[in-house]
């Protein structure tokens, strides 16, 4: 990953998008962020971006109009060149059914939005810092085989 990978965020709630960006700003994220309002927009964006490495991380809400997070996961994980983009499900639902479903559909991580902003802040910044570090690691040829 030579250039700065994009973080793609799908959330239909404008407030949540604002809060997320506020957390990103606080933790000093330099990567570009792109916001979409539902699953269809997400799929459309990801298909139009020429470089397959341009999206480095997807933060996905579950319940969205038009196309929900489950459907997005189903599509992403069924296409070989999209499958390796890590998807973090970020939703208000705490139901075990949703958690199990998402992992079964291939989600890489499931985060239930904490009701406390402080906790939310900590969780998201930890995740982002970790992802930034991982994405900056040089790609080892042996590992790349597994990634594909």
């Amino acid at each position, binding site marked *: 990953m030579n250039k700065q990978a994009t973080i793609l965020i799908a959330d239909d*709630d404008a*407030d949540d998008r604002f*809060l997320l960006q506020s957390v990103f700003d606080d933790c000093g994220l330099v990567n570009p962020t792109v916001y979409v309002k539902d699953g269809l927009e997400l799929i459309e964006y990801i298909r139009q971006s020429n470089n397959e490495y341009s999206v480095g991380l997807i933060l996905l809400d579950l319940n969205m109009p038009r196309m929900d997070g489950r459907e997005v996961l189903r599509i992403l994980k069924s296409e070989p060149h999209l499958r390796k983009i890590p998807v973090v499900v970020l939703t*208000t639902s705490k139901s075990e059914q949703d958690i199990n479903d998402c992992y079964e559909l291939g989600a890489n991580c499931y985060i239930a939005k904490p*009701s406390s902003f*402080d906790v*939310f802040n900590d969780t998201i910044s930890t995740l982002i810092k970790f992802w930034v570090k991982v994405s900056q690691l040089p790609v080892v040829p042996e590992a790349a085989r597994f990634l594909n």
Partner: protein
Amino acid sequence: MILRNALLGIFLAMGVSLAMLVFLSWLAYDRSVESNNRTQSVNHTYRVRLKNKDILATINTIETGERGYLLTKDEKYLQPYGEGRSSMKGILRSMELLVRDSPRQQKRVDSIKKEISRRITLIEFNIERTRNGYGIDTVKLSDGKNHMENIRSLCKELDNEERELLTYRSILQKEADENTNFFLLLLSAVSLAFLLVFFRLLYIELRRRIAFQKTLEEKLTDLERANAELEQFAYVASHDLQEPLRKIRAFGERLKMKQNDLLTEDGKTTLLKINQSAIRMQQLIDDLLMFSRTANLRERIFEEVNLNSVFRDVKGELNDLIEQKKVTIISEVLPTVQGIEFQLFQLFNNLISNAIKYSKANTPPIIEIDCQKVNGSELPNLGDIQKDNIYHRISFMDNGIGFDPIYSEKIFIIFQRLHNRSEYEGTGIGLALCRRIATNHNGFIVAEAKPNQEGSIFHVYLPT
């Protein structure tokens, strides 16, 4: 009680009409047997009278044969005489058999037999005389006439007696028939009346049941609708209500994080209150959700739950609190019940933590749990049928601050609290949840305040 009485009435009416029907059948049978007997005796009378006529006819035949021979000395007249003599024996024997049952008639038959044998001896003598060429002995002839008259009068007597007997029996039968008929009719009417009463009772009871079932089904529909609405509400509470609340918290906390230093002291306090209230509302919504999930009937799958291990688990869960507050908990051996283990755990947990929470300052809490089997009649507002049920009564007794007895029902209402939040924490869901759980298990929970504020007792009733 009304239900039982109706049932008893039905059984009684059925029993009586059944008994009457049995009696009626027996009576009808008895009557037919008797009537058969009477017919047989009438037959018997006719047979005796017929036999009687046979005797007379036969002796006449014999005499006619004798006369013919005496007048003509022609042997051909002796043929009916011989035939008559030989058949007479059989006739007399069967006559004797027929009158075996009546000594009087027997005596008559004996006399007839003797007269006939005398008469026949005379006839034999007369025939012998004529055969040997002598003339007719007029004295013997007159003797024979006498014998014949005796025979005729005896036969007449016998016949008269039989005729009288027949008349007497007919009258008797007629009377008896009339009596029996009347009695049968009466009995039929009475048992019909009983049957009608029985059917009427059954009909009323059935109508009542149908009405009752209708009410029950309507209630069930209402309940299902209410339950669906509750679930709908739970969903709305979980999603639509929590969503804006989460925002209030997020923006409130964000404001505090970013701008707290810029705020005046008053602004800071106001923001703190806003954030605290939001947190509290979150707790309430979470509790409400838990409560509605506990009320969800669809998740009710009962299994055997040993309450001793539930108690042990709860003690383990509260271990830190128990040590910290120096709590003594004593429990009797508890039963195994049918239930939802997780909910029973919650029930024990809530009751025991309540007892610890509302303990008196400076007095180490002592919690005693005892268990007894009791009758449902101990509980107020219980249906008739439930009153006979046997319940495990598990009582949680503490030495805490107790409560005013007038609140003994109010404390089970959701979000009802008797104390200020600054004194004791909580949302007021605990006991409401306990009642919900007890209800889920077809049981009950009631609270009792010990006198002189020496603590409280919570009785949990679970079906055996």
